């Protein structure tokens, strides 16, 4: 039962609930204007700016026919006057039927869910969780592959700090995947996630060079390799071009292979890839709207 639940971490949802959201997202894609929430008010509280995520959520809310209140810039709110998160959430939860929130501090959404009278949807809490991203990634994988089971998934780039890859790994673990982790030594997949996979008996390999795995992947999940993540800048200069995907590298990859990226990209996917039919990242972003419609509609119990 998703109705009335907060979505703070991806593991708040069971396998069945994840599948239900994916199914509903497909339904909203086929028929995007379903004003099921005409009598609802939804708060969109962005304690730090994230235009991309905010627009995606607010589009979803509008397509569902609900009205939006909130803020996109914390400087315009009383939080800058020292109001606590607790007070803001208690107040807003008396006005709205559901709260979508993004906050720079980790754990803010879980704490808000304990204070709020209405469900919270976490749109990112610092480096911790961003579950709607994971669900839209899974919807994208399902759409491009036809199913979620037994897929070979290559994750490339910053696997140490990239919260999207960690959440995706956890959620995909329900579906018997094979993982190929491709990262520079400084940004390897943290041990806790490898231990998690070991305990679940899920296969993975670690690589430094993506050429070694491109031919095997059904999904190529690219992430940004940011300079500021490196303690050793010489190492950054040495590896930075290793984690850039060019169109020529896609020769010999599987026909069903699709390239995903949480966006925004900087230079890790060369623009010559954009016109390749295997490039899926812009469509993936569009899928975010349908996924968020599915999340909100099921939490408010209209689907």
């Amino acid at each position, binding site marked *: 039962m998703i109705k009335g639940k907060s979505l703070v*971490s991806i593991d708040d949802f069971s396998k069945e609930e994840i599948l239900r959201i994916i199914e509903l997202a497909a339904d909203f894609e086929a028929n995007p204007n379903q004003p099921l929430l005409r009598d609802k008010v939804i708060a969109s509280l962005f304690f730090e700016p994230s235009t991309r995520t905010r627009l995606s959520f607010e589009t979803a809310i509008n397509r569902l026919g609900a009205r939006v209140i909130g803020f996109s810039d914390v400087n315009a709110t009383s939080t800058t006057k020292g109001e*606590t998160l607790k007070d803001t959430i208690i107040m807003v939860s008396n006005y709205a039927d559901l709260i979508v929130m993004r*906050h720079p501090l*980790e754990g803010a959404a879980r704490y808000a869910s304990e204070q709020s009278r209405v469900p919270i949807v976490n749109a990112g809490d610092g480096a911790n969780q961003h579950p709607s991203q994971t669900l839209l990634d899974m919807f994208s994988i399902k759409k491009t592959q036809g199913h979620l089971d037994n897929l070979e998934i290559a994750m490339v780039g910053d696997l140490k700090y990239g919260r999207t890859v960690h959440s995706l790994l956890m959620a995909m673990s329900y579906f018997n995947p094979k993982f190929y982790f491709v990262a520079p030594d400084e940004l390897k997949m943290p041990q806790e996630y490898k231990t998690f996979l070991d305990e679940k008996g899920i296969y993975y390999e670690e690589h430094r060079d993506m050429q070694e795995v491109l031919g095997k992947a059904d999904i190529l999940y690219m992430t940004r390799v940011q300079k500021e993540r490196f303690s050793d800048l010489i190492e950054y200069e040495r590896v930075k071009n290793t984690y850039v995907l060019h169109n020529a590298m896609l020769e010999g990859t599987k026909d069903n292979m699709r390239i995903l990226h949480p966006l925004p990209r900087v230079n890790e996917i060369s623009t010559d890839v954009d016109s390749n039919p295997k490039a899926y990242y812009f469509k993936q972003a569009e899928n975010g709207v349908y996924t968020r419609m599915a999340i909100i509609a099921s939490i408010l119990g209209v689907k």
Partner: protein
Amino acid sequence: MEQHKELKVSAIKNGTVIDHIPSQNLFKVISLLGLENSGNQITFGMNLESGKLGKKAIIKVADREFSDDEINKIALVAPQAKLNTIRDYEVVEKRTVSIPDEVKGYVRCFNPKCITNHEKIVTRFFVVSKQPLELKCRYCEKVTTEQHLVIE
């Protein structure tokens, strides 16, 4: 031998003796049990010789017994602690401490970006591992280890 050590801290008629506390954590134990504000007669000794711990500390609290919940709070800082309940100068019960499955309210999350370090929030951790100690924050989901353990 044990008899001789006991004499370093005066005997009590009724109450609790908490032994085998690591010396460096004596004041943390006192604070976790809320003994600073207690009206009971309390005596303690520290830097006593102990084979196991190097230097150990001992606390005697007169006319006071502790519930398991109270006493398990000290398990994080004194995992080897032994409690003797004393009635009429006799040890009537011996207890050890055990780390609970959830730790609430007295450990700080080591993550500076955790919401609990920015607002007045009672911390909560799931104990992922007791040995070595690993506490997963309910809020930021990061793991605080023994090395970074700060008791408030």
